[in-house]
């Protein structure tokens, strides 16, 4: 049974108990009201009967006293006012008798009816006697002696006492009935209340027990699943929402278990692939390093001998040979630069590039770079602005690599800017919790689009393929410069807008940590890039 049904049934049960309580209360109230009404009616009838009896007695006494005291020799009859008052009293008694009769039912009504009839005869007899006092004294006395007094005695000493006894019994019955009803209704109310309390408590206990048990199982199951016991299954008997929830937990655990297995398998595969890739990369870097070394040896020979031949040709005046030899020398130098870059990059990736930390003056280093790059500035008609802080001072880093990186950025700026301005700024500031030298190269050149920026620091990559054709270069410079900076604990970032220029910012710690010397970067450095 679902929790919803259980709650619904519990609600209905409590509602039923509430209704039962209400019904018992209404029944008890009705019974008590009836009993109180019976009691009130009995009391009212007793009072009324007492009044009737008292008034009949009083009237009888009045008649008796009148018959005793009335002096027929001095009075013709009872005065009219007295007679009228007498009749009014009779009428009042008669009304009360009929009211009493109207309230009577069953056997009691028969008895009351008899009394009413007898009283009618008595009052008629009294009236006759009253009317005949004096004028027809003998008739009056005869009426009194023969009719009135026996009737009065019968009514007052027999009929009314019997009725009084009957009414007393009725009153006692009404009181006993009231007591009984009050007791029964009180007991019933108490019993139903206790029953309701027990049932409500039982319903609440059962619901609470069911929910608590289910939730406890779910909590323990979820804790075990959360702890990694994915093979654990939550068991809840029944067919309700908690069972559904447990089923969902179990299904989730099954899915997690399967996914976990798959992830483990993928991780194993990835680890193997990564190891293979690292091996391949190391092989490649080793190959490149060895090959670069082997290539540089003949190139140095070509450069050296071409320079010697140029000097000899100049000395001998063979101008046409000098031009050719200069081209050979230039091509060889370019090839050597490329090979050096490839060698450096491969050393970085192979973790074989060492840092040589030394203190040096930052401004002096910058001046060196600017003087070296002066011909490049002049080539494209660019203007240089220097913006250096006065507190640059010294830094302790690999001077060669800092200079190489800055020169690379500066030469790039001169390469991609024509008739523009190149600003070189330097600041000493706190960055990432340590004091750093921040060098920025700002040009007003061609700039780059966001897609071009996204692949800017990849080796052998320039903004576009056409860039390489138009401006030259291999695309190794930026990648190498960034990796050199990162090797020292710094970085190179770029902001650029196509057609407006670029800003390359290079930051290197003022004091490069000694621990970075000889640190293997390799693949991890590549991944970071």
């Amino acid at each position, binding site marked *: 049974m679902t929790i919803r049904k259980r709650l619904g049934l519990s609600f209905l049960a409590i509602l039923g108990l509430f209704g039962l309580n209400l019904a018992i209360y209404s029944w008890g109230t009705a019974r008590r009201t009836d009993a109180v009404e019976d009691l009130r009616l009995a009391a009212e009838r007793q009072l009324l009967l007492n009044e009737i009896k008292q008034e009949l*007695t009083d009237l*009888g*006494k009045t008649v*008796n*006293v009148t*018959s*005793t*005291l*009335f*002096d*027929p*020799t001095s009075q013709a009859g009872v005065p009219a006012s007295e007679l009228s008052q007498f009749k009014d009293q009779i009428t009042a008694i008669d009304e009360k008798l009929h009211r009493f009769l109207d309230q009577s039912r069953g056997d009691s009504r028969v008895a009351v009816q008899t009394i009413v009839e007898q009283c009618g005869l008595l009052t008629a007899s009294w009236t006759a006697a009253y009317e005949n006092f004096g004028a027809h*004294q*003998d008739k009056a*006395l*005869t009426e*009194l*002696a*023969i009719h009135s*007094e*026996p009737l*009065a*005695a019968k009514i007052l000493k027999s009929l009314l006492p019997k009725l009084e006894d009957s009414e007393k019994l009725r009153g006692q019955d009404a009181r006993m009935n009231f007591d009984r009803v009050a007791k029964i209704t009180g007991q019933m109310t108490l019993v139903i209340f206790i029953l309701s309390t027990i049932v409500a408590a039982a319903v609440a206990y059962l619901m609470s027990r069911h929910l608590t048990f289910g939730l406890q199982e779910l909590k323990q199951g979820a804790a075990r699943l959360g702890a990694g016991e994915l093979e654990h299954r939550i068991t809840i008997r029944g067919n309700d929402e908690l069972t559904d929830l447990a089923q969902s937990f179990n299904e989730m655990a099954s899915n997690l278990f399967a996914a976990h297995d798959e992830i483990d398998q993928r991780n194993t595969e990835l680890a193997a692939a990564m190891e293979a890739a690292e091996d391949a990369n190391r092989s490649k870097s080793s190959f490149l390093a060895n090959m670069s070394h082997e290539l540089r040896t003949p190139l140095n020979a070509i450069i050296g001998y071409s320079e010697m031949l140029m000097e000899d040709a100049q000395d001998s005046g063979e101008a046409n040979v000098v031009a050719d030899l200069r081209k050979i020398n230039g091509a060889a130098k370019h090839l050597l630069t490329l090979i050096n870059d490839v060698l450096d990059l491969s050393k970085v990736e192979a973790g074989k590039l060492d840092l040589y930390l030394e203190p040096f003056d930052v401004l002096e280093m910058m001046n060196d770079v600017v003087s070296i790059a002066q011909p490049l500035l002049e080539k494209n008609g660019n203007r240089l602005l220097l913006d250096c802080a006065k507190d640059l001072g010294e830094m302790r880093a690999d001077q060669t690599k800092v200079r190489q990186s800055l020169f690379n950025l500066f030469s790039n700026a001169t390469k991609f800017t024509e008739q523009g301005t190149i600003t070189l700024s330097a600041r000493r500031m706190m960055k990432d919790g340590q004091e750093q030298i921040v060098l920025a190269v700002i040009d007003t050149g061609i700039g780059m689009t966001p897609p071009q920026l996204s692949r800017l620091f990849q080796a052998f990559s320039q903004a576009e393929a056409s860039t390489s054709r138009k401006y030259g270069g291999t695309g190794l410079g930026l990648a190498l410069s960034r990796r050199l900076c990162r090797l020292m604990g710094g970085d190179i970032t770029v902001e650029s807008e196509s057609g407006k220029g670029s800003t390359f910012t290079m930051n290197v710690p003022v004091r490069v940590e000694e621990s970075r010397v000889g640190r293997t970067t390799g693949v991890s450095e590549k991944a970071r890039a």
Partner: protein
Amino acid sequence: MKKSQPLRPFLFPLLALVALASLVRPAAAGDMAVVVHPGVSVDALSFPDLRKILLGDRQFWKPGEPVTLLVRAPVSSERTVLLAKIYSMSEAQFKQYWIAKVFRAESTSGPKIVLSNDMASDLVAAIQGSIALIDSKDVRPGVKVLKIDGASPGDKGYPLK
């Protein structure tokens, strides 16, 4: 003087009648007879019993047979004898006595006042259990005369003379 002269011729005969009446009255008054309804089961009473009955202290001849007292109206020799010999009360005390007795419910009915001995005789003859005190000369057939202390009216020692 002239005004009294017309009465003088009647003065002697009037005085003679009064003197005659005074001579005749003792013989006419006689003893007071206690008369009851013929159905009453009692033929003789002692004077104390008679007194109880007439005082309303005894209200039944026998069970189921109530006593009905018939008393002459004021200013009658029977009533005078009754008040003097039985009640030993004045007229006012007699009335007070019965008012109290009735209102204390010591008696279901008071004495009934009759205008004459004839009426008394007639009612005694008509009403069961009734009793009256009348001049023995006025006793009529249809009623029973009780002996008091064993004596009838006219007998020597009769208490109601």
